[in-house]
């Protein structure tokens, strides 16, 4: 799934998290809320960039280009797409790298997203989808586009614990490296408690010091966000 560069107004009417998601550090309640948010997007807009909260196909592609700078397509590779939504990255890979051999696994919290993704890519054995938040086996690379952005009022300490565990999962799932993007600043008119915009140093340092990666920060691609390319050492 993606994250909120799309309809700035959409997050305005949203109520921040309440009940167990705030009072007790309950990650499941937070993820459940995030899942419901994206499923509502999918129901409203369908399987297209708006359905995963991006403004348009072109900006969605721009993010994919950055994430895929991690990968070498010269030899066959395996790729996990965490928060894959309706499988847009799988389609982009086929379009952008038609000669590459990619064993693709998309993972998403939402069964509705995975259903749509499977329908779009039916009949291609190199493209698979699973419902979940992680995967027990390793691939060469793991990428995640927009999964850290929409926190829906989740308190920062709790959200950051989820980011930390997600990055650790990505490291565990990756033999060669992982890539993830974050918002650099809030879109106009968006309530700050709904989105997460950390300084790049926070998570690049975490990936270097705690996860043992060499990290490259890319922030020069025309949109107000940045991508961490973490190479396993």
């Amino acid at each position, binding site marked *: 799934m993606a994250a909120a560069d799309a309809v700035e107004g959409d997050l305005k009417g949203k109520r921040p998290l309440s009940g167990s998601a705030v009072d007790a550090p309950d990650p499941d309640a937070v993820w459940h809320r995030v899942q419901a948010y994206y499923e509502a997007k999918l129901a409203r807009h369908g399987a297209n*960039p708006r359905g995963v909260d991006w*403004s348009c*196909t072109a*900006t969605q592609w*721009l993010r994919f280009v950055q994430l895929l700078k991690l990968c070498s397509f010269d030899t066959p590779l395996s790729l996990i797409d965490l928060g894959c939504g309706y499988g847009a990255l799988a389609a982009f890979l086929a379009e952008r790298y038609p000669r590459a051999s990619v064993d693709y696994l998309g993972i998403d919290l939402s069964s509705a997203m995975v259903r749509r993704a499977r329908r779009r890519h039916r009949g291609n054995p190199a493209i698979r989808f699973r419902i979940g938040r992680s995967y027990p086996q390793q691939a060469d690379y793991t990428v995640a586009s927009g999964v850290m952005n929409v926190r829906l009022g989740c308190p920062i300490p709790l959200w950051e614990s989820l980011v930390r565990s997600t990055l650790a999962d990505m490291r565990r799932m990756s033999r060669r490296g992982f890539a993830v993007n974050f918002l650099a600043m809030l879109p106009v008119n968006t309530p700050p408690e709904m989105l997460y915009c950390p300084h790049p140093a926070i998570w690049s340092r975490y990936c270097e010091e705690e996860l043992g990666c060499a990290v490259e920060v890319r922030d020069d*691609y*025309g949109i*107000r966000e940045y991508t961490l390319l973490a190479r396993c050492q």
Partner: protein
Amino acid sequence: MGAYITDTSTADVLFQLNNRFGPGAPLDEMVTIQKEFQVFSERYSLKQAFRLLHIVPADFTERRFWFVFLEALKNYVSDQEGISGHDRIVRAYQENLESARPLPVHTTTHRLADDRRVMVTQGHPIIYEPQEYLTISIPTKPAAESLPRRAAAEARRTG
């Protein structure tokens, strides 16, 4: 545009165009998109380009007419001899976004009765801004004069 989409949709897409190609961060985004994907080039028609950029009327029923209008621009004349309105717009975006000093783009309309050509100029269309813009002006008929014909054509089409 009035011959194809309602006045509300015209205002809607003009607002989107002027936001997405506005000065600062929006223009930077468009420059990067152009550099990476050549959205404005012979590879894509305007209809395809605006689909990729999701510059479409909010009203779903109007979207089809917007795409019909974008295709119809191929039959419009422009301020460049022998270049259609469609190609003039594509090239204007392309040359501007790929230039050393890209300008924000201001899209507006003028009365078809005054000038049938798609016009591309450079200047200061927003009087309270010192910012220079590339201005694309599209010849337009008021929807009130044109939409009855669209309704009649639609009725004939659907039987």
